[in-house]
């Protein structure tokens, strides 16, 4: 049924529709590749989980709980579920790997029957005049390792496991608070950065931990050809100002500071502008989904444009993303007035407006009977209304960004005949074109 519709959109979406058995869809404007992958992973997991025994599931979820801990909260609640599920998938593959003799294979050493002999032999061997080795320290091999060697070991453990190491022992956690470890980690992971000079400009370099974080971000978020520490620092600067400050400075000032920083580091004006917009996009994408972010995005959307010369002017792409995020990820947060304000602002800036942005607006309009005809007549709604319960309409986009506002056309399809009575009356009055596809 879905496939026969002439306006059916991208394959990802229709596949998603069929996979979810016609339940209401998340109203994302478009599926990025990662989202699509994540979705795929989730379906794989769903399948796997139903196959596995309940015992396995239990063990997996326990292992996962231990491993995940907090701190995945970079996505808001809505996304956390998704990332949670994809972690289950990872967990499954890890477990299989470990059973097959992966990272746990060193355990053999400890199960060997010679183990006790070993321990006693070493106790006798290591008897030293200066230190009396007690049973305890023979049991705890790390007890005699000085801090600088612990640092050598820890910096070789993947960074994702550092939180586990900190939780082992207070002394270990303290090492992760010290400059020494971060300096070693910095030199090890980013050997070239060790020789980097300090730079002029408003954004400071900070200590090793900060630099490590910045370099990590430069490398992992902005896969640049040339590793550029300042990009990471700028990202942190912007994210902190937007996220942590209760009253962030005006956008124009933050943007100007970033541009100044890049120019004082010798970047061309074009490069500075390009990097700054990349940083804005990355920061906006990585904000948590909470009320503060919603208010921030709303402020960014509504903040008036003052004429500022290039490269200090804000990039179109960034403004687009602000609106896109508001209308997709945050559309449930809007109240009516805010929604119309922001929509008006979006209309002023971008025409045509992509149809996914209109989602919540459509929903609201449909709930409000009076405006239903107006939707159809005033705007193109290349949207399929799917209706299983006549009182509750759900909407699925069949077009991606392609829909525009100029054409008045709606395709209406209903599952049961009882729905038909309602839908035509919604749309028929002002919009005769909408009806013919009804059975």
């Amino acid at each position, binding site marked *: 049924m879905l496939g026969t519709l002439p306006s059916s959109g991208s394959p990802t979406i229709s596949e998603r529709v069929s996979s979810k058995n016609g339940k209401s869809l998340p109203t994302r404007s478009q599926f990025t590749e990662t989202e699509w992958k994540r979705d795929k992973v989730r379906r794989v997991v769903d399948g796997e989980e139903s196959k596995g025994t309940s015992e396995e599931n239990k063990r997996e979820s326990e292992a996962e709980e231990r491993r995940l801990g907090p701190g995945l909260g970079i996505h808001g609640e809505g996304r956390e579920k998704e990332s949670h599920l994809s972690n289950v998938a990872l967990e499954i593959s890890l477990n299989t790997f470990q059973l097959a003799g992966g990272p746990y294979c*060193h355990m053999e050493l400890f199960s060997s029957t010679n183990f006790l002999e070993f321990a006693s032999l070493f106790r006798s061997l290591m008897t030293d005049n200066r230190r009396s080795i007690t049973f305890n320290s023979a049991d705890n091999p790390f007890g005699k390792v000085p801090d600088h060697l612990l640092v050598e070991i820890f910096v070789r*453990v993947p960074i994702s496991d550092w939180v586990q190491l*900190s939780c082992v022992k207070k002394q270990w956690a303290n090492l992760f608070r010290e400059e020494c470890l971060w300096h070693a980690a910095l030199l090890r992971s980013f050997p070239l950065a060790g020789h980097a000079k300090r730079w002029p400009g408003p954004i400071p370099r900070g200590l090793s931990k900060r630099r490590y*974080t910045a370099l990590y971000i430069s490398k992992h978020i902005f896969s640049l050809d040339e590793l550029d520490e300042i990009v990471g620092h700028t990202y942190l600067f912007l994210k902190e100002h937007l996220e942590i400050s209760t009253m962030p400075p005006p956008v124009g000032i933050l943007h100007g500071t970033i541009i100044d920083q890049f120019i004082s580091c010798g970047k061309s004006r074009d490069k500075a502008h390009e990097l700054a917009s990349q940083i804005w996009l990355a920061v906006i994408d990585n904000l948590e989904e909470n009320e503060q972010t919603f208010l921030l995005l709303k402020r960014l959307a509504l903040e008036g444009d003052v004429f500022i010369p290039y490269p200090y002017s804000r990039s179109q792409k960034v403004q687009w993303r602000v609106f896109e995020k508001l209308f997709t990820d945050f559309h449930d947060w809007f109240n009516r007035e805010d929604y119309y304000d922001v929509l008006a602002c979006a209309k002023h800036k971008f025409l045509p407006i992509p149809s996914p942005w209109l989602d919540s607006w459509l929903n609201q309009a449909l709930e409000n009977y009076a405006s239903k005809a107006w939707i159809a007549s005033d705007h193109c709604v290349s949207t399929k209304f799917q209706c299983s319960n006549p009182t509750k309409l759900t909407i699925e986009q069949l077009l991606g960004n392609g829909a525009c506002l100029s054409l008045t056309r709606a395709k209406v399809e209903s599952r049961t005949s009882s729905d038909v009575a309602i839908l035509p009356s919604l749309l028929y009055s002002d919009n005769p074109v909408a009806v013919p596809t009804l059975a």
Partner: protein
Amino acid sequence: MASAPENEKNASAPEKKTLTLKSMINNEEFVVDEHVALQSVTIKNMVDSDCAGDVIPVPTISGEILALVIEYCKNHANPSASEDDLKKADAGIVAKDIYTLIDLVLAANFLDIKGLLEVTSQKIADSIKDLPHQDVREIFGVENDYTPEEEAAVRAEHDWAFEGFP
């Protein structure tokens, strides 16, 4: 006393110079070629500053560990060894239990042999990575000195800016 044996050897022997390393823990002695032993920066400094006798005492390192260290140095002193061979040989040396590895890393640190320190710490790191902290404690007998609240606080502290990124 220090320089006498060396002069003697220089004069008498065109063959390779050797040094004797003696573990002070169990008094085992090892005779090694000088160029092998000189990979240890500590020994090199001793020899350079002429304070090495014919027997170099090595405190705090047992004979067994010293044997491994010397094996490593011999492998790496061989100019004809290919990189792959060396990697395999290194892997063989560090394929030990954690007690030996820790002693080895301490020895590498004391004798200042950078390569050995590198492979040994890497091996130890590999054995503790991917383990939840309870397992690290259990397997390596590390005592827990946290209250649950403190542990939660440490976790929160480690909620680094880049967590959650690939």
